[in-house]
């Protein structure tokens, strides 16, 4: 389509991060301490290895239905989480495994839910897209594109109603950002000054449709402008940039200024779901992001460059993460399926 081709993408592989424009209005990443770098590395590695394992298990038929992997986007949720306090809430769509792990949910319980076992977070009734942990303030896990946006706005409403000063981080993708209910939510959130950070994870493709082919205003940070909601674009592949932007956004909400939008420029390496061969983009495009912008590799490089860790140290971290993930996979493979009597439970209290 001629029109789409002539449109300048803010987010091409060359200009993925950050464009000159973007650099001007975004927070420059403040340096992490050694501890922060190591924590971010462990968290991101856990998500990556978990997702790789989930992909394998899907291929083995142990996981059914849809399975949307988060590989490539790890810095977003890990950086955001670093700015949150325990009582803040988080809610997202169906690409949710990373969010749950970042919230501190047990990888065994998450993986067992993927395999539909009784030890899963939803006792095997929810699956990949529908998991919750009230303890960790994770409110799902929602399968309908955009539906979590009013829900997250409602969680923020509850914070304001109760005067808790907590913030709800509401995640959605570039595809959901075109949903009508998102704008209904923006309107109410600003009208009522609700403490909600809208984190738009722009991974460039709504399933197979690129941002350029789906979005009249491809700069999603501006999508709140007609509601007077401020927004900024953030290098979502750099965990430090994410953390810095998140700090500012959370402070904005906590001081009663209302909602704020963070557009995370990110990229998913895998297809939309396991059944998506991702023919809508070139291998070169994917490889370029992987080699030049990988969020985990960036942290590894810094740790090595600053001599905060040796290759050996990093191998040990990776090994520890793999052990965790293998335990989760073992548990999820051998845990029993739900008792048939569970069919009729949990539908009415």
């Amino acid at each position: 389509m001629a029109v789409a081709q002539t449109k300048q993408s803010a987010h091409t592989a060359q200009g993925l991060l950050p464009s000159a424009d973007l650099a001007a209005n975004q927070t420059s990443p403040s340096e992490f301490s050694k501890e922060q770098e190591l924590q971010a590395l462990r968290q991101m590695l856990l998500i990556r290895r978990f997702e790789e394992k989930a992909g394998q298990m899907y291929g083995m038929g142990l996981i059914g239905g849809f399975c949307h992997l988060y590989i490539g986007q790890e810095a977003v949720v890990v950086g955001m989480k670093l700015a949150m306090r325990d009582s803040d809430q988080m809610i997202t769509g169906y690409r949710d495994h990373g969010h749950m792990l970042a919230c501190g949910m047990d990888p065994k319980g998450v993986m067992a839910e993927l395999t539909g076992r009784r030890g899963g977070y939803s006792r095997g009734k929810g699956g990949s897209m529908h998991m919750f942990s009230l303890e960790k303030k994770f409110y799902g896990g929602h399968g309908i594109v955009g539906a979590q946006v009013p829900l997250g706005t409602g969680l923020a409403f509850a914070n304001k109603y109760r005067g808790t000063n907590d913030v709800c981080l509401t995640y959605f993708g570039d595809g959901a950002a075109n949903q009508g209910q998102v704008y209904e939510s923006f309107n109410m959130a600003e009208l009522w000054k609700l403490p909600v950070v809208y984190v738009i994870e722009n991974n460039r493709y709504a399933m197979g449709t690129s941002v350029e082919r789906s979005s009249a205003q491809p700069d999603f940070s501006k999508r709140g402008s007609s509601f007077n909601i401020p927004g900024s674009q953030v290098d979502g592949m750099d965990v430090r940039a994410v953390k810095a932007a998140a700090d500012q956004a959370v402070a904005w909400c906590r001081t009663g200024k209302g909602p704020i939008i963070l557009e995370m420029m990110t990229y998913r390496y895998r297809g939309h779901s396991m059944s998506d061969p991702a023919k809508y983009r070139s291998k070169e495009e994917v490889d370029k992001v992987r080699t030049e912008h990988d969020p985990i590799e960036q942290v590894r490089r810094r740790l090595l460059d600053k001599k905060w860790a040796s290759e050996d140290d990093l191998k040990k971290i990776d090994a520890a993460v793999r052990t965790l993930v293998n335990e989760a996979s073992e548990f999820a493979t051998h845990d029993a399926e739900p008792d048939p009597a569970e069919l009729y439970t949990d539908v009415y209290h």
Partner: protein
Amino acid sequence: MPTEVLMPALSPTMEKGNLAKWLKKEGDPVKSGDVIAEIETDKATMEVEAVDEGTLGKILVPEGTNDVAVNTPIAMILAEGEDAAALKDGKKAPSKQSQAEQPASQQKGADSAPPAEKPEPAKKAQTPAPAKTGTAKPPSADITPEPEVPEGTELVPMTMREALRDAMAEEMRRDPDVFVMGEEVAEYQGAYKVTQGLLDEFGAQRVIDTPITEHGFAGVGIGAALAGLKPIVEFMTFNFAMQAMDQLINSAAKTQYMSGGQVRVAIVFRGPNGPASRVAAQHSQDYSAWYSHIPGLKVIAPSNAADAKGLLKAAIRDPNPVMFLENEILYGHSSPVPKLDDYVLPIGRARIVRPGKDVTIVAWSMGMTYALKAADELAKENIEAEVIDLRTLKPMDSDTIVESVKKTGRLVTVEEGWKQSGVGAEIAARVMEDAFDYLDAPVTRVCGKDVPMPYAANLEKLALPSVAEVVEAAKAVSYR
């Protein structure tokens, strides 16, 4: 000939109103379009315009008069050259000529009045009638409240609108987590005045006007419920809840199950449901069957003030999402409500409103008005109908229906919703499964006709169920 100014109707369902204020006094010149008075109902305020040029000759109803019936002459306008003496002729009921001169809104009310014989309840509201003997009455049979009400409890007549308001206010006093949100619920005092006074008592923090964005605010309400609050979300009418259907079903109804029981969604969605009057296809339909199809939702549809109060209080306390289906035409109907500090009814229990041995009639909400009038008619022909008010559609009280059918052997269901896949179809199937051997005739359904609701008064009447259809069905299954 002096021109009469008649009490106008603000809506097709308005029967009477208050004459709040005269803006002109006797002897003032008026011309067409001048605002001469203000009238109000519990729902709205409206200006009365002069319909003719002349002089305001006589004020027939002083300001501050309450409950003036629609179409009552309230003033006389004298044409040039006429004097007050002419008014002696003018105090009669409105002549045909004077009606033709009324504003359009009044003409509509007058013209749409159904033929004199046996008007339907929905239509009765439009019938010009003197205030005191208003034709729109609550269902005729006994609507005495639950048997468990202590002996000697005072019964207070109350409209369904007041009962619903009181239920919300009582629950909001009891539990700070309960709040109300919706379009026009706060400053406007409710599009149908059901939330009247709540803003004054509870403040803007707990009585919240929303933008006209049903999809969004239904989701916001559910989100607040995820956090443990107990929202009451008012839809101005359930027609507009279609915009929110995804949130209602995918987010409200399913989350508890999808979370393995971890997350509750304790929320009430309420508002008027079912055919209204003369508003045509998009604003006039019954969603009873839609919501009662959904696992995870409870669905309540009361027919009288006591049930409305007791069941709304129960709904607000219930840990599940509840669809509370009210009815615009019933809002103004009065019936006795027990004066108790905390009148809460069990969800999921039907009530035998009128015992009988010959045929069972099951209805709910507005359907009860047809059912009870039909039972009166049938009694004249020595058919004793047992009328069951289902009250809760989901979970459905099959036992009460089945027990009744075991006694009568015959069943008629009444609903304003469409026949295919309707609630009546569900009841028929259950009775077939659980009381097949007791049936002496096929179960018969009296329903809204399977067409979008027409606007024309005669077609609308045909599209709705009627008392005559219920009588006919009951006689048919009784082989009479």
